[in-house]
């Protein structure tokens, strides 16, 4: 492979193939890296799984939430809990660490397209999200008598993929603004309250009215409502309004990340 590359000058078509290969390899190694980082993979997959087993399958066994099975309802909310964790810790903490170590600078000095770096992190978070949701679904079906159709599962997966984006953008903001040493702590300070207030642990209608109103500004709330919508369990608001909520949050985060990145660049 390498000897052929040396004798033949790069043609335009092969340069496109090369760029696609860079994107692919960047993603492959980012996924491999995080999978091998036990502290990451075990907690990011383990937390939603353990929480779901406890609260969705064991403690609320046979319970119904407004006439719907608790196991099925919480499958949707813990799926969102899982993707928020994968995005916030995979993208946010990963970026914060590589920024602090100067590794990102070395990558930027290389001919790697910067988009490959960001996409690799995003797609990796999506892949972890798919793994988490698949495990949760399997547990729900086998232990919680949850029945879902293949189409519903496919829609969940599609939501996982789209749902990673706003939280990945939030992770970027965290990485750019928080000093690295405190980034994991701050991530948890965002992750856990945001999950609770967005109705991921306790169904939103059981939260105090004040919190229900507050939830409208949380991306976790909108993502959870979209996910619940797959089963027809959405609490309030139209599907479009939830998509707009996520889009607005994503744009806000990307805007802040852009400003923070420019500021960082000027300081370097």
């Amino acid at each position: 492979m390498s000897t052929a590359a040396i004798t033949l000058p790069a043609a335009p078509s092969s340069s496109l193939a090369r760029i696609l290969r860079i994107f692919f390899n960047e993603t492959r190694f980012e996924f491999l890296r995080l999978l091998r980082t036990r502290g990451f993979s075990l907690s990011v997959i383990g937390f939603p799984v353990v929480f779901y087993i406890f609260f969705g399958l064991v403690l609320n066994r046979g319970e119904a939430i407004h006439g719907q099975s608790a196991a099925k309802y919480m499958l949707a909310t813990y799926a969102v809990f899982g993707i928020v964790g994968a995005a916030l810790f995979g993208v946010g903490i990963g970026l914060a660490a590589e920024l602090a170590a100067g590794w990102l600078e070395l990558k930027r000095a290389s001919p790697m397209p910067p988009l490959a770096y960001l996409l690799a992190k995003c797609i990796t978070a999506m892949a972890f999200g798919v793994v988490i949701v698949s495990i949760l679904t399997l547990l729900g079906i086998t232990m919680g008598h949850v029945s879902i159709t293949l189409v519903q599962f496919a829609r969940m997966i599609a939501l996982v993929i789209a749902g990673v984006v706003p939280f990945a953008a939030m992770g970027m903001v965290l990485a750019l603004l928080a000093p690295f040493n405190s980034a994991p702590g701050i991530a948890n300070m965002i992750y856990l309250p945001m999950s609770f207030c967005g109705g991921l642990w306790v169904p939103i209608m059981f939260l105090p009215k004040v919190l229900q109103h507050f939830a409208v500004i949380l991306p976790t709330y909108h993502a959870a409502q979209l996910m619940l919508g797959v089963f027809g369990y959405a609490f309030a608001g139209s599907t479009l309004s939830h998509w707009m909520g996520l889009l607005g949050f994503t744009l806000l985060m990307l805007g802040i990340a852009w400003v923070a990145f420019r500021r960082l660049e000027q300081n370097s």
Partner: protein
Amino acid sequence: MSLVLDMPEIVATHGVPAAAGTVASLTHVTKRYSNGVLALEDLSLTLRRGEIVALLGPNGAGKSTAVKLMMGLSSPTSGTVSIFGADPRHSAARLRTGVMLQIGTAPHMLRVREQVNLFRGYYPNPMPYADIVKAAGLEGIEQCFFVQLSGGQKQRMLFALALAGDPDLLFLDEPTVGLDIEARRAMWSQIRSLAARGKTVLLTTHYLEEADALAHRIIVLNKGKLVCAGTPAEVKSLGAAATSSQPSALGLKIIRCVTALGEEHLRAMPGVAAIEIANGLTTVTTSQPESTLREMLALDQSLHSLEVSSPALEDAFLALTSN
């Protein structure tokens, strides 16, 4: 600081390369950070094809800033930076450069082989993997995760990443920090062979001996300003002139070795000015190091652990950067 006795090799690198095409240049570059720190002030320098240039200076002299400007990681407050006649942020320039930065860590849980191949993939015509392994001395650690490597091995992997694209221009920011003598000398010889193949190398160091051993030209920076530039011999003589307060230090060399020769014996040798014997190690200060050494080696076949250092090296450097 000591210079390991390695005369022929060092002398060989001091020949200025014949080819003189400009590869990279800084022209009247000033860099002021947004916090007001003036990192570089009106610095101009040119790198030519096939030469090794050392940026020498104490910490905070602006060496890393100069490298980052040339890598397009940072833009100058004023002045221009040009790499292969283009802006350093241009991707065509990046395809022809390789860089080794002082970084905290690389991804922990990727193997050395994986990281090298990932970087090779960024370039259309990368250096063959086997050549990189050989050049960076990665034999035996290719399957290790980065987190398992020793400090010197980490440094070698970063050197390998800089070589990945078979670049025409290499920036090495303190490349031998943390390396033991053997690994350092292995990297030096790799850097020399790169230059011999027409590659251009800019390295930063705060060791004058490293600059002296490797570079065709030395550029001494202090507090963001050019102090002096020239061949190692020129820089040293400038430094020596700056140490004129101690003219006696000029031409003196310090010989350290383990020898059976006694103090009286040594004192009779030509040029010897002082002798110190402690912990089995003999230290001889001499104004005629070649003659002294020749005689010592002839008289004591078992002489070993030999080092020759020049007090003027350290003194020159300190004198040049002290004000």
